[in-house]
């Protein structure tokens, strides 16, 4: 007998794709129109942010200021296992099924009527993942018969919504170089390619390069990619397209090659302007003396044309950042009434402490007002939107110190965890206010020399975070975007790390690390209702209508960046216990009208 021996090294998923199963439209499938109309339809939630603009405003008013006192839990579902840690996810709702993600890249489908599990998917993560700021996930996307989410090893996976089986899985970045992914993907319509699924990337602490990728949701094939850092080339249909910016225009030398600008919080989309808005993270390394210049597009908002991945406009909230003031925070499109005019505006509450309103069609600056107290790094923002830096409040250059090892330490406000971090704010079409989950804290920060090494932290800075006040850190604020006026404030002992939801019923919901889901009066800030969930809340609440009743849900489980990076803040959070559940509430039958 003759035998032929062959040794074969086989490529993994990177090189080879599977053709997605072509879906025939059935009633249960989610269409791109459903996603674009998500905000107006109270019966489901098929996007992150309750609509592509991310306003987190529900038109439902069955639940109101009067009957909220009767809101009771229906069921609680445990994520199980030993993998608790931070739960930052916003669930999706479709046809009586909840799709919710959890820590360590897991996902569940749950029957809302019974609270019973339909399926669970656990991503098989490699041992060497490098998430900087806890093993969280912020949510899924849904289109057709598939649900999608990002995993900690920097992949995006498409699952069969009925079974949880993997349909395709694609690589966003090299996890060994520090890439990961935690944000919910964004689905947008295009003329040229049909619906696309957009992702950012994470890893700004490891010297990665921020990028937005657009893929075909059926197959996962890459359609275009857009790096955020000038000098890097984008791609379209498998070929190089255009360079981002102009090489070395705002970056000296070659530091742009590992320049950061991670798009780690994903994006929003406005059907009016047909633009996708992504925020970009801090420049790398943190030590700003190594990279003179504005360092575009780090700590910025960029508007991308989904047809081709070109940047239509950019606005840098913190040029030449030296404090880790990521610019990733969500940019929410809204129509602003000012002086009798309707302005196509967008707003964002930056880590740097200022609340910005921009013209969302062209990125032109409209206003910036502080939303936290005692900001030190800038005295304000000029008429072009550029910060008025306090030069003495930039951490000192280590090269100018006696031994060259540690620059002068300064105390800066806000701290590097930001006046507002990832947790999304809400915009009420009822009150025209933004509801911003913020924190009042500062930091000692100093710079150190650093060189880039693949997969190693790329900071060049030391820091410790400090509360500003003895009695509170967290601060939920109602802000009028046309004036910047703070209408009311709710103070919380521990830092706020969860998203906000507001409704036509006049309610503002958010969770606290102390474990409460709370509801406030949208006009006065009065606390109307609270429920203790048994572990800290660092996620975003949702509400929807099913069988004529209004439901509220929140994911619970303490974690996220605060317990890992919290410095002196540990005093108020170190006793908090981990968890991992989703809670569902409604008003029992007969009590809704009382």
């Amino acid at each position, binding site marked *: *007998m003759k035998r032929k021996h062959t040794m*074969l*090294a*086989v*490529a993994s998923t990177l090189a080879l794709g599977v053709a997605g199963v072509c879906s025939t439209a059935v009633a249960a499938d989610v269409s791109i129109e459903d996603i674009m109309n998500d905000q107006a339809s109270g019966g489901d939630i098929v996007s992150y942010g309750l609509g592509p603009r991310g306003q987190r405003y529900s038109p439902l008013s069955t639940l109101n200021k009067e009957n909220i006192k009767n809101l009771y839990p229906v069921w609680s579902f445990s994520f199980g296992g030993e993998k608790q840690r931070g739960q930052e996810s916003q669930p999706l709702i479709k046809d009586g099924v909840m799709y919710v993600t959890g820590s360590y890249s897991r996902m569940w489908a749950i029957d809302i009527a019974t609270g019973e599990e339909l399926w669970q998917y656990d991503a098989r993560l*490699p041992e060497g993942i490098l998430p900087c700021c806890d093993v969280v996930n912020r949510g899924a996307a849904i289109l057709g018969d598939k649900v999608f989410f990002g995993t900690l090893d920097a992949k995006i996976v498409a699952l069969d919504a009925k079974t949880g089986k993997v349909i395709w899985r694609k690589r966003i970045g090299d996890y060994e170089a520090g890439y990961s992914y935690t944000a919910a993907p964004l689905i947008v319509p295009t003329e040229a390619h049909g619906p696309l699924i957009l992702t950012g990337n994470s890893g700004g602490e490891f010297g990665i390069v921020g990028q937005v990728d657009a893929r075909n949701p059926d197959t996962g094939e890459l359609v275009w990619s857009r790096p955020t850092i000038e000098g890097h080339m984008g791609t379209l249909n498998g070929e190089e397209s255009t360079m981002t910016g102009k090489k070395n225009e705002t970056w000296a030398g070659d530091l742009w090659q590992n320049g950061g600008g991670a798009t780690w919080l994903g994006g929003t989309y406005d059907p009016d302007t047909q633009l996708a808005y992504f925020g970009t993270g801090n420049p790398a390394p943190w030590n700003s003396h190594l990279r003179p210049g504005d360092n575009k597009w780090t700590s910025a908002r960029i508007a991308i044309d989904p047809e081709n991945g070109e940047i239509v406009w950019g606005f840098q909230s913190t040029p030449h950042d030296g404090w880790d003031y990521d610019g990733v925070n969500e940019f929410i499109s809204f129509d602003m009434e000012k002086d009798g005019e309707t302005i196509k505006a967008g707003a964002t509450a930056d880590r740097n402490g200022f609340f910005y309103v921009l013209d969302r069609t062209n990125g032109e600056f409209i206003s910036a007002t502080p939303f936290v107290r005692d900001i030190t790094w800038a005295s304000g923002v000029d008429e072009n939107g550029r910060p008025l830096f306090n030069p003495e409040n930039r951490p000192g250059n280590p090269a100018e110190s006696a031994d060259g090892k540690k620059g002068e330490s300064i105390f800066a406000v806000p701290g590097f965890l930001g006046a507002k971090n990832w947790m999304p704010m809400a915009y009420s079409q009822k009150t025209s206010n933004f509801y911003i989950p913020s924190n009042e804290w500062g930091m000692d920060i100093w710079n150190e020399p650093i060189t880039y090494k693949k997969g190693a932290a790329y900071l060049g800075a030391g820091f410790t975070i400090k509360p500003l006040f003895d009695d509170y850190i967290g601060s939920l604020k109602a802000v009028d975007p046309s004036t910047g006026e703070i209408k009311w404030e709710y103070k919380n002992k521990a830092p706020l790390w969860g998203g906000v939801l507001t409704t036509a019923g006049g309610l503002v919901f958010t969770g606290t690390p102390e474990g409460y889901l709370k509801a406030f009066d949208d006009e006065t800030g009065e606390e109307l209702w609270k429920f203790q969930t048994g572990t800290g809340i660092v996620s975003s609440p949702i509400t929807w209508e099913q069988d004529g009743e209004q439901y509220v849900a929140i994911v619970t489980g303490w974690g996220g960046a605060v317990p890992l990076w919290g410095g002196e803040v540990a005093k108020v959070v170190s006793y908090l216990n981990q968890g991992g559940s989703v809670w569902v509430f409604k008003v029992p039958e007969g009590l809704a009208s009382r």
Partner: protein
Amino acid sequence: MKSVSRIAVVFCMMLFSTGLLARQLPEDPLDSVMWEAMAERFMPEGDIVFDERVRVMAPLSAENQFHVPITVDATALDDVVEIVAMADLNPIPLVMSLRPSEALAFVGFRLKLQQTSPIHVGVRTRDGVWHVGGAIVDAAGGGCTAPAAAHGNSNWMKTLGETRAFAGRDTDHSARMTLRMRHPMDTGLAAGIPAFYLNELAVRDDEGNILAEIDLYEPVSENPTLTLKPRVGPEATVLTVSSRDTEGNIFNFPLDVPAATGL
């Protein structure tokens, strides 16, 4: 007493689900307490007969409960449509299912055993009848709930899907191919390790026609080893093997089959 009541329950469920026309199950020569449940779950329709033409070759006693070699030879039967293997007392009993559309009714593989267990193999012929054979394998415990050996090495993912394969000849109208692929085949039962296993494999001829398709499940051993006998002509040819795991990783490769001359 316990097992009797369990059988009674399963039997009642069977009557209930199939109505009064419930088929007669032959008595199991291996005397497995799980026989009715295995038949109901994995051979749900069609008559069932124990048949000596289904030869299940297995060690009497497993030297290694993580790698128990099993060979199934049903080539004495005509018109085989499907071959299903189950390890009755494993926490996950279903091991693999082969559809040898253009291959001999033959398969070799290795499985993990959680304890001493009967192995049943059902071979379905085109007329819908299940021909069943089996063996009992004595084994030490724990084959399904221990972490894969690969996890002793932190970069095991780097070698995922690496394959050693060869094809030779037994006859001039079939090839004999064996492959061994690096994969942890995690069952999901080891603490903290989610299920992650190779679950689909297909062999195609040089025109892309499917010769054999196999579904693999959690009890298949780490670094799965498979032997199949696809039908091919006497001349040299190239088969294509394509496989996929539960995370959507795809492993495809060509496999040369030598000409039959010189046999």
